[in-house]
């Protein structure tokens, strides 16, 4: 039963309701009662005269989604916080506060998140002026510690934080007692940029969100624009997209596998997985002309068709890769030390994972059988067969097994695409100026790191009014803190590695 919140149908068929701020907590509580257990995306929007916060919620058991629109009163820009109902609201609310200046009443720790604490102004507001002074000098607050505890700074320059992630660990001996993550070192304002470029000009930017899975990012962006335009994409193009994104998933998981083992202190797998990843890079180079930032998926299809020669090369790569995968398993899977390091470490129970907004392999390794490709199907996935890998152990070992299985499934998908590639054009006829009608839509794909969503608002012009990126790494990182509790420092690094974060995407 859906609670009656005054639902309407939007252009993309998603039930949506407008709520005044004071009715938000009770409305969300009623939705939770009705089975909505997942806060997908929390976005700030500047409507010009007033601010708005948009909540996308999901019922994972019944595959239902709704959107709630809350207008922020302009006298006092404050709405109630949802953190007591969804821990997943924690960082997104901080982000909205940081970038829009909207306060959330009841938030436990409402600080800036992407920008430094001393930043002046809120840059995603339409009235923000770029030539305003930006940053006052920065100071670091002292953190309290008991005599037998110490805070140790890890990152942003540290060999194992996979980029410019920084966390402060409170250690008692070598046991982690607390954790304070700091992000934003790689914030490049991609959401703001989308408002300053037209839809076609923005096409290469998604490559730079998550540069290890650029194809998947492109898919999220062009998918959102196409849905807003109600544009039909040729089937051949959809198949080519599956080919590109699944190969990219393999490449991304390979890099994860190598770095994760490196975090555990095994150095060789890192070099082995780079060898295979390199081959995929070369295939992409053939396909798109670039090794990392492809700009291959375009609005309405794909940039280039698949040549028979390249199809042959990809086909030849698959059995080779399966042999290599078996080698990795022989080296790693039964290793006593490996098992001792990953079993029972970094537990994330399914309820907690959902409540904290985890997605992707992290969520599936916690025993939640959820994959957007199957459960919110898009593109050519309904026509292809694949298994969704899950693990019931909730630990690092499960995350390892899930990703290994996903690489195999991705290869199967690629094989199906090569076998059943439909004839036809690889790109729809798209007007030179892409000008979707006014409206908004949320479109999400299953990226290697989880649910990568784009909440896109168009105003009828050739550039977006607002583009919100629902970055899986950003959301998954909120699960770090509970997983660390009580583990040793060495485990903390492994647990961080097991989430598979990518800072380009966390900070955007």
């Amino acid at each position, binding site marked *: 039963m859906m609670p009656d919140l005054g639902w309407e149908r939007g252009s993309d068929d998603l039930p949506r309701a407008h709520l005044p701020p004071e009715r938000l907590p009770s409305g969300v509580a009623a939705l939770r009662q009705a089975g909505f257990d997942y806060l997908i995306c929390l976005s700030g929007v500047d409507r010009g005269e007033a601010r708005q916060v948009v909540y996308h919620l999901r019922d994972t058991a019944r595959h239902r989604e709704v959107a709630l629109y809350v207008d922020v009163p302009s006298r006092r820009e404050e709405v109630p916080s949802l953190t007591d109902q969804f821990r997943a609201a924690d960082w997104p609310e901080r982000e909205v506060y940081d970038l829009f200046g909207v306060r959330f009443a009841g938030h436990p720790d409402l600080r800036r998140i992407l920008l430094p604490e001393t930043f002046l102004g809120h840059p995603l507001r339409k009235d923000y002026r770029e030539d305003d002074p930006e940053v006052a000098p920065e100071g670091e607050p002292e953190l309290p510690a008991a005599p037998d505890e110490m805070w140790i700074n890890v990152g942003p320059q540290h*060999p194992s934080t996979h980029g410019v992630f920084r966390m402060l660990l409170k*250690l008692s001996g*070598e046991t982690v007692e607390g954790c304070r993550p700091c992000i934003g070192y790689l914030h490049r304002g991609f959401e703001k940029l989308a408002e300053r470029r037209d839809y076609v000009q923005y096409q290469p930017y998604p490559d730079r969100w998550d540069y290890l899975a650029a194809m998947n990012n492109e898919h999220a962006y062009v998918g959102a624009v196409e849905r807003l335009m109600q544009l039909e994409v040729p089937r051949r193009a959809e198949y080519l997209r599956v080919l590109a994104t699944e190969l990219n998933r393999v490449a991304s998981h390979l890099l994860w596998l190598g770095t994760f083992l490196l975090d*555990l202190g095994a150095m*060789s797998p890192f070099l082995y997985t780079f060898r295979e990843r390199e081959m995929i890079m070369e295939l992409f180079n053939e396909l798109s002309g670039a090794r990392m930032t492809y700009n291959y998926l375009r609005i309405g299809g794909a940039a280039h068709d698949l040549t028979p020669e390249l199809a042959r090369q990809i086909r030849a790569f698959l059995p080779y890769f399966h042999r290599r995968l078996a080698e990795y398993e022989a080296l790693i899977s039964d290793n006593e030390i490996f098992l001792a390091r990953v079993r029972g470490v970094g537990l994330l129970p399914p309820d907690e994972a959902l409540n904290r907004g985890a997605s992707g392999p992290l969520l599936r390794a916690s025993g939640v059988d959820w994959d957007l490709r199957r459960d919110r199907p898009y593109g050519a996935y309904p026509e292809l067969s694949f298994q969704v890998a899950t693990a019931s152990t909730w630990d690092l070992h499960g995350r390892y097994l899930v990703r290994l299985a996903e690489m195999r499934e991705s290869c199967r998908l690629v094989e199906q695409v090569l076998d059943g590639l439909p004839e036809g054009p690889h790109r729809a006829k798209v007007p030179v100026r892409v000008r979707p009608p006014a409206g908004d839509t949320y479109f999400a794909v299953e990226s290697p790191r989880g649910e990568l969503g784009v909440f896109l608002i168009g105003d009828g012009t050739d550039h977006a009014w607002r583009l919100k990126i629902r970055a899986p790494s950003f959301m998954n990182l909120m699960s770090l803190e509970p997983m660390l509790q009580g583990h040793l420092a060495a485990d903390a690094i492994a647990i961080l590695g097991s989430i598979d974060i990518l800072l380009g995407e966390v900070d955007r």
Partner: protein
Amino acid sequence: MGQPYLRLAAAALILAAFVLGTAAFLVWFERKLLGRMQVRPGPNRVGPGGLLQPVADILKLTVKEDILPEHADRPLFRLAPLMAFVPAFAAFVVLPFGPGLVSADLNIGLLWILAVSTVSVLALIAAGWASNSKYALLGGMRAAAQMISYEVPLVLSLIGVVLAAGSLRLGRIVAAQAHLWFAVPQVLGFIVYLIAATAESNRSPFDLPEGESELVAGFHTEYSGVRFAFFFLAEYSYVFLAAAIATLAFLGGWSGPFLPPVVWFLVKTYAVIFFIIWLRATLPRIRIDQLLSFGWKVLLPLSLVNIFLVGLFRFI
């Protein structure tokens, strides 16, 4: 009258050259071997096959700026690298490379090596403490816990050898293996020794004191230049030492057909070193709590069982 001193001075010089040369060669050997195991060429630019790469590295390190961290314990910070290197060097003194090829043939040779190399744990703690850095401190604490824990099974595994040979003199231990290497009857002791020695020299999978995943570089995080070079050389000297003792105590030392004794000694030693490097290319790092419980709960009882078995067989 001057002659014994002259002989001693000459031996010391030769030994110094050998230790430095060996450590440098081992750096190259390890990098080359790891490279081959990891489908990459390894160093190949400086000298034939990259052989002069370690020389270039050490030269570079000696001309680097000497950095002392702020608020470091200066005397201790300066002393620590020497404390790491000098014992390693001192241990080489009693090492026989062949019959009669030894600088000082002590009748307590094995004991001397074990006793002297214990000092290096102090160097690691001192380095960790003196750096005034949290990472270094954690690394130093790990080093202390690890090296003290693994010294016990290490020594106990060698007790079996001493029992069987009836002497602490390394030459006698080799002679006692004329018919059968100790590795065969004392296979248990040999395995315990290999594991404990790998841990004792802080080699992967027991390289926790410098576990770079979490501790950046552990106890030597704050060291650079020539002081870092000393830690580096000490580590490789210990690897050679560990392999040399394995050869002398378990693999029959320099004995072997056809080839000269020195060659046999080096071949066996490098075979053990190869094994230790192979471990590094294969295994992930063990965790500190697992390391300690493995040392005390598995290796220690095993080494005691080994002593018991050796005693039993001698009695029969």
